[in-house]
């Protein structure tokens, strides 16, 4: 029982990341009809916003300390972050430790700009081009983006821990009446889940309850008619692209304490998030979210030792197996609309 609850928690947590990325992908599919292979790279750039902020906050002045020696036996260069100077070592250090939450604020304008620039600078020229061209150009862009990040930050993962206040784990067991210490869950992962829920709800509310959202939804359904009504749908779609970039970027920022970011994390997520989007059904936002959580939970269950013993290798293929089963039983995924990306 405890094991199952834990795996559900794990599944929801994994699902949060899948759902956030898939949500952004679907927004772009649905509004612009573009297959965006660079979406994983946007997620990765978001994560590196957190790394960058961490680096900026720990910008240091260095001086030579004659009393200490470095590994070569020369006088050691000691670095002290400016923040330590300005606010004293304790406050300064805690600001640095809070760089990941602070990076959310830092990342929003950057990701909006990235999204805007991508759409205006590149993607908009590809609306009328075949999907094949869109794939090639966005894949090329994804490679370029990740290589640029690699050139600046190297190939190794970079540790970006959560603030000390959020390290450690929460004891669910005690709360639910199980033995203590049997169901514990890391605070940051719980925050990630809550954050994902918040972002997903806001995106839905935005589309559902604002005029802007209404126009966008109308545009998703029938772009030409909306255009004929005299509405500048392109501008709104550009906005949607920027929003999708922000959603993926924030997913990246918040993900950094869970796993240290590296330059290829976008590619690692890319294929999975495509599977999630398609299983959810093309053009369906609720479908993408649902599929994200569903695949997350199933993946978690498949990784339990008893399940692996029963079906060796199941943990390796579960997502793809589920995808095949769902696509064969439901022609357009869970909630797909007819005619979207079917030809």
């Amino acid at each position, binding site marked *: 029982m405890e094991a199952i609850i834990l795996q559900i928690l*794990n599944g929801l947590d994994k699902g949060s990341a899948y759902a956030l990325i898939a949500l952004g992908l679907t927004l772009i599919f649905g509004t612009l009809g573009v297959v965006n292979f660079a979406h994983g790279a946007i997620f990765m750039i978001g994560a590196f916003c957190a790394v960058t902020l961490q680096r900026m906050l720990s910008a240091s002045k260095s001086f030579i300390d004659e009393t200490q020696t470095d590994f070569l036996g020369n006088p050691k260069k000691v670095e002290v972050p400016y923040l330590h100077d300005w606010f004293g070592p304790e406050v300064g250090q805690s600001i640095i430790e809070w760089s990941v939450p602070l990076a959310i604020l830092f990342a929003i304008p950057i990701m909006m700009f990235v999204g805007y620039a991508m759409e205006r600078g590149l993607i908009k020229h590809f609306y009328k081009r075949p999907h094949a061209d869109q794939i090639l150009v966005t894949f090329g862009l994804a490679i370029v983006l990740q290589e640029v990040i690699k050139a600046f930050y190297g190939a190794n993962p970079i540790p970006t821990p959560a603030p000390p206040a959020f390290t450690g*784990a929460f004891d669910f067991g005690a709360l639910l009446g199980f033995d203590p210490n*049997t169901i514990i869950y890391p605070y940051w992962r719980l925050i990630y889940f809550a954050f994902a829920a918040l972002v997903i709800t806001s995106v839905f509310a935005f589309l559902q309850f604002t005029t802007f959202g209404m126009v966008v939804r109308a545009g998703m359904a029938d772009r030409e008619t909306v255009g004929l009504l005299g509405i500048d749908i392109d501008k709104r779609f550009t906005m949607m692209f920027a929003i999708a970039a922000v959603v993926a970027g924030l997913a990246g920022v918040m993900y950094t304490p869970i796993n240290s970011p590296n330059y290829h994390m976008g590619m690692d997520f890319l294929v999975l998030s495509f599977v999630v989007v398609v299983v959810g059904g093309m053009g369906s936002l609720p479908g993408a979210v649902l599929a994200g959580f569903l695949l997350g939970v199933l993946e978690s269950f498949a990784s339990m030792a008893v399940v692996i013993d029963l079906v060796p290798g199941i943990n390796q293929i579960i997502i793809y197996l589920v995808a095949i089963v769902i696509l064969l039983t439901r022609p357009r995924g869970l909630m797909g609309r007819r005619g979207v990306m079917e030809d």
Partner: protein
Amino acid sequence: MSKSNFTRRGLLKTSVAAGGALAMPTIFSPSWADGHAGFTNAPQGSTVTLGFNVPQSGPYADEGADELRAYELAVEHLNGGGDGGMINTFSSKTLDGTGILGKKVEYVTGDTQTKSDAARASARSMIEKDGAVMITGGSSSGVAVAVQALCQEAGIIFMAGLTHSNDTTGKDRKANGFRHFFNSYMSGAALAPVLANAYGKDRKAYHLTADYNWGYTTEEAVTQATEAVGWETVNTVKTPLTQTDFSSYIAPVLQTDADVLVLNHYGGNMVNSLTNAVQFGLRDKQVNGKNFEIVVPLYSRLMARGAGANVKGIFGSTNWHWSLTDEGSKAFVQSFGTKYGFPPSQAAHTCYVQTMLYADAVNRAGSFNPCAVVEALEGFEFDGLGNGPTLYRAEDHQCFKDVLVVKGKENPTSEFDLLEIVEITPRAQVEYAPDHPQMGGAAATLGSCNPGA
């Protein structure tokens, strides 16, 4: 910069000088002198080309970059540049800064991408296009085994880079291939006594193992070694190589009565699984009245950096560490650090040493012929290259030397100072028979050396 060339046939230049613009069909390169022909890519002219095949893209690119730095340093030292590094401390004194056998050392580089196909393509281009007489490098066992097999077929010497799986010099050993790096068996044999000492003999271990060959051999080595000191193995679970989030593998550990978690992961897998395990508060947990502990059998300092503070106090093993204080290590750290500004990694060390060993073997053999080199390296005893007295065993071309058991440092003084050496396990303790079951048993054979053409 020098105006050297990367010729396949140094002879061509001379033939042109002689005005020989004639068509000269040849099937194999014409003999140059006795002992310098009859094998693939026999060096002609005044230079010899080595092939440095390292991961330059993909997750191990930083490790590859460090390997490349070490190779460049080694070439510099072989050609008489720099401070000579470990040439001065090496017990064999044939290297004198005049290259190898008096030929200036040149090199070509390639990208293995940590994929065996790409690594072989790159190695073949070095052999076929650039005329490399030796291939070295790599950061994974899959690549090492694939390239080693290629070199065996082509008649080229392969000096493995970082490869830790038993298979490289176990069931997949080849006469033309040599490994200086240690292996899974040695990790297990070195770690188990230290672990028993630190954590007690009555422990229950839970293994998470990367689901591929290296993971299998490491899991086997560590379970056997720890069970020999009295530990019990509660469970072993395989995790996919492509896994990034290990939460669903770590959480179930909470439900077992295991009190040690062994992470048979390397590289990105290790960084993520360790980070996740610490997130789940495993290190603050008490089981059976004991502190819960985590063990990482193979440490890489470069990768450990990615796990940040999570490595503190965690045991593992490593082939070499820059904080060693023997003469060889000090000389190497000094020249590497002076040139690049930071201390070398274990990958850099093993690659540098392999290059030196190859150069020395050629000098001693008096020929670049792979079979002569094999003969010179087999059973070769040396010292002064950072690992104490070392033997290149003839039966499987594996180096036998001391193994370092290390622990994540509690108070690192710099970003390179992440590991502290707990124990230097003496060579005798990690030795095994060449036909050990973990090494492919009696069926494993080197075959015979292949000089190629």
